[in-house]
């Protein structure tokens, strides 16, 4: 006989005036190789069809299913129940606006972040369809991809002390995004340009260095190194500004 798992799941439907935030208990028999993706879908199909949660690729690639699993933000799709105790508590990610139950709105948050960081290559070069591609060192290309592996699940933001204190803090995902463009030779922005975006308490100087972001990142991005790299770079830029005055 396999384990009977007890799930405590946060429930609230903001679109239903009669709904109030509360925890609800579901019991499910554990099966072989069960993940939270399998478990939550079974609960929805067999016990409560109104239960809201987000999954998309269910393969750890898209970042849809970030939630707080027994106190820790993580991706539900690649969380195996056999690695968890018999009682599992699931809460929606904090910081992001709640859509309902375990579903939050990460899309709006990240879209605003693209605007704030101007998340695109800044260049005055025109594309010439008749020319060969511009060359790039393979190490540089691989280095950029290393930082572009973020799936925007929001786990780092939810685990961030500063982000939970202040709404306007950019957070690790955004700072990592800036670092991605900073090391890209195609982007013509200068350190001073980046300073305008992140050289303040909403940006790199707001980071308290708790580093929970790196601890919870399901893609194991080197967030700690990036924060250190940006802090040094922006610190120097800041000093240059002071002396120029």
């Amino acid at each position, binding site marked *: 006989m396999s384990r009977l798992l007890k799930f405590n799941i946060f429930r609230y439907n903001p679109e239903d005036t009669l709904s109030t935030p509360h925890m609800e208990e579901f019991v499910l028999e554990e099966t072989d190789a069960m993940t939270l993706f399998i478990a939550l879908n079974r609960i929805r199909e067999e016990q409560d069809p109104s239960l809201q949660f987000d999954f998309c690729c269910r393969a750890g690639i898209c970042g849809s299913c970030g939630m707080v699993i027994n106190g820790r933000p993580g991706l539900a799709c690649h969380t195996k129940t056999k690695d968890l105790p018999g009682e599992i508590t699931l809460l929606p990610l904090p910081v992001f606006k709640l859509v*309902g139950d375990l579903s939050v*709105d990460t899309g709006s948050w990240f879209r605003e972040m693209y605007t704030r960081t101007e998340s695109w290559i800044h260049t005055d070069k025109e594309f010439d369809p008749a020319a060969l591609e511009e*060359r790039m060192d393979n190490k540089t290309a691989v280095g950029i991809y290393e930082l572009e592996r973020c799936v925007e699940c929001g786990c780092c933001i939810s685990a961030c002390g500063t982000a939970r204190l202040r709404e306007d803090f950019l957070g690790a995902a955004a700072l990592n995004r800036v670092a991605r463009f900073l090391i890209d030779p195609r982007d013509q922005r200068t350190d001073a340009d980046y300073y305008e975006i992140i050289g303040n308490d909403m940006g790199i100087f707001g980071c308290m260095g708790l580093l929970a972001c790196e601890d919870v990142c399901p893609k194991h991005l080197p967030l700690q190194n990036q924060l250190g790299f940006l802090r040094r770079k922006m610190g120097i830029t800041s000093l240059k500004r002071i002396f120029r005055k």
Partner: protein
Amino acid sequence: MQTVYTDLLVVGAGLAGERAAVEAADAGFSAICLSLVPARRSHSSAAQGGMQASLGNSVMGEGDCPDVHFEDTVKGSDWGCDQEVARLFADAAPIEMRRLAHWGVPWNRVVPGKSIYFKGGKQFEKVEKEEKEGLIMARSFGGTAKWRTCYTSDGTGHAVMCTMDNRCAQMGVEVHDKTEAIALIHDGETCSGVVARCLRSGELRVYLAKAVMIASGGFGRIYPNTTNAVICDGGAHAMCVDTGVVPMGNMEAVQFHPTGIVPTDILVTEGCRGDGGTLLDVNEKRFMDIYEPEKAELASRDVVSRWMTHHMREGHGVKSPYGEHLWLDIRHLGEEHITGKLREVYEICTSFLGVNPIHQLIPVRPTQHYSMGGVRTNKDGAAYGLKGLFSAGEAACWDMHGFNRLGGNSLAETVVAGGIVGRKIAEYLKGCETIFQTALISDAVKRQQTRIDALVKCRNGSENVYRVRAAMHEALNKGANIFRTREGLDACVAALQEALVRAKNVGLRSDGKGVNPELAAALKLEGQVKLALMVAYGALMRTESRGSHNREDFPARNDRDWLTRTLAIWKSPDDTLPTLEYEPATTVVEIPPGDRGYGKSEIISADDKKE
């Protein structure tokens, strides 16, 4: 009721949709993409392996050019494709890859000098040329004559999706995520927008546009075992089928990927085999080299999937609680390669299977993967049946893949077709004036509201949405799988017709308030069963074997009678079967039908046709 107006409305914010939207925005038009999820979560981002384009930078790709790419694509399609479209695609692909590099994709680049690579488990050496240093590198993929697949480690889709979405942000293309289109607004001649449901509040909303584009990806989720994301559910296709005038092309052409992992059907990339991985049976022996001495593991997907299934039927499968499977062996590629160029594979194996592919074998089996069929369009991406309706990417049957697509050709198609169709849409918009008929719009909304009310109040019955969906899954899985027969398909069609009746009688068990996921599932169920019937009935009628459509009772490819494309239309809502029509597979013939050089070779020639 909120009404949103835009020039171009794209249903779907994956690579094809966003690429087309960028093109329209570039021409000065407003564009909005609707998406079930934030754009970067689109299934495009799950594509690991790469994009085919004949840049010929790698030494193993020397001599490659659009002609060779075109020939591979036509052969890969088993001559089921539109050759004019395959030509457009092969010619434009290199330019599009370079454009992506300009926009920010960190393609892996050529590193000059000696390096080793694997083929069929054996080690070889190659020397990349100095003068090519820093140009876009390519890797090997199945069914191609040259190394042609441009890649970013094994996160190509993700990297290109990030760049494309950045480009959208830069160009002011809006993405309305958590929004689901549920019905097209049309008068039987022209399409003028959609009724959508907000997945933040559950409210209905109207989007009006001069041009509507379906770029919603595949519909693999009508099968129970699929590599597709849960959003690839055919909802947008169902909306087109519902018009009664828009035909779906070649719905019976369903690709099964050789390496879905067991039990969860998550895909591990073809890059594993491209980089030299081998398939092993229960005795840990290679077998693909017996069936396909020339190409072995690198024959095209339909061929490999079929031999795998055949080999398991012969009793060489590995037994497991989840049914039989085979092994994928990449151990010889070494730790550096596996944790570098195949890192996603490494992570999938360790996170979902508890298998370390550096030292252990990966359990795999063929799994539903790609829908060659979809909204039938002409070479400009304009859908048949409704003016102002376009489609591109996996959602469309444009049709460069015919009856089997090559690995790396779909991800490339998303941006190449998105670009080509996007430009055609911009041309269309330039010459377009439109009048929106208010009665038509309010009727469309009323019809959807009535449907929702009926589901919530169980007015048509109280069938359980998930059970009906399971019945559809089971029918397709049994009857319209890798190997097909008349008996199997007859039973499948009958079971699906039964499911269709039940789908019309679905009622919700929950209250349907707000976003309600049960309502979302119920709203598309009937349409999904209709799509399933198009697959099964089209397969039943097509009495030949071509590409991924394999009839055991008709093993030959029959060019005499079936060098055609199936068009399936659901003419009346009361019909219990789609109406099938046929058109020539291609009107332009650069390469006459011939042997593919791999797989079965039994062909009934088109020359046998009696005049």
